[in-house]
């Protein structure tokens, strides 16, 4: 089944406001940074947006839309399941 995938398309535009971090947390009923699938790293020399894959379990459109600088894009057609690896003896 396809799912929506959140991508950081314009990281250089990030101003470090963390609205995306807080929006992701609100979707799971939290006001905190603990367990957030998004972290904003860095400081005055620029910010890096780190996403972990669990962000795609959320409503990524809402996260993308809340960014005041349009740093994100949402791609359709991502795979829900990750790659599957089998142990050597099973191959």
């Amino acid at each position: 089944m396809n799912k929506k995938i959140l991508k950081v398309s314009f990281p250089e535009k990030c101003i470090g406001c963390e609205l995306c971090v807080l929006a992701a947390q609100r979707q799971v009923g939290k006001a905190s940074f603990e367990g957030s699938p998004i972290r904003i790293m860095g400081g005055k020399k620029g910010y890096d947006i780190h996403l972990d894959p669990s962000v795609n379990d959320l409503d990524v459109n809402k996260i993308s839309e809340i960014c005041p600088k349009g740093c994100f894009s949402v791609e359709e057609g991502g795979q829900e399941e990750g790659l599957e690896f089998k142990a050597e003896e099973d191959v």
Partner: protein
Amino acid sequence: MLRKVARKRGLSLKRRKMSREDSITVVHVDLEKGESAKKSYPDLRAYVGGVGTASKLVLDYQNLDPIVFSIGPLNGFFPYASKTCVAFLDEGKFVDTYGGGRLSTRLKYTGVDAFILEKKAREPCVLVLDGSGAVLVPADTAVESLGIPGRRCGVEVLDGSVLIDGYFAFGDQRLSKKLGEAGIKGIVVSATSGFQIENRERYDRQYNEMLGKVGEMLIEAGSNPSCSGCPMGCARSNLGENGGNVFIHSLVSCVFSESIYSSIPLAFACLNSLGYDYVHEDLEALPDLVYTNINKIYEKASDSKLETE
């Protein structure tokens, strides 16, 4: 004080859903001994937060030459509420100054409403604070090497300025001198806790309403480093603030959001969505409470000077 008021009016403070408890949580840091202790103050709820809480703590611990860092009920929960108040005495004068960046959200999500630096450190040091408490580490430890990446905030004490995350200054340069005299070269706060949102639908609605008021901000949006929780990226986020509107600086939002948070119905709506039971009289009484605290601070200082002489 608020509990008494609430009981008298038959209100229930237990409705405060997103606050960890009914009290203001304060971390006391004894710089001389290198020890810290977390304490709860139910009576401080009447002072709301920010300069309200800080003025009371400066008064109550005046003999320890305190430097109080204090946030408010909206920090970490609503847009534009992005400042941290720092209050202290400089040559007998009460100073309240404000800085932005990530400090207020980190403090909120550390479960700390305020921390007080008391007395002076024997050796220059860096304060490291998280949900488990505070420790002092040697001053030669690089501030950027401390704390949890992505959940940390670093404050550096430089000659003539105090910078949050290397960019956001406080409004009053006397803070640099004051912290330097106390032996503090840096402060690192890591957000290690947080809040469960019990009434998510109501909170989301209120949050979105506030975010939708971005056009009412009294400053142009830009592409500068922004304070946590604020979408503006404005050109003045790095300058800090001083004194001014007691209500705004108790909440603690920035001066450019004054047009938004000065609206009492809106402020009530935000506070109520978080479960706070403040009523009009509580908020109206706030400026008087703060000015009374400051007057008492000056009286105490004057009495103490007379005793010394």
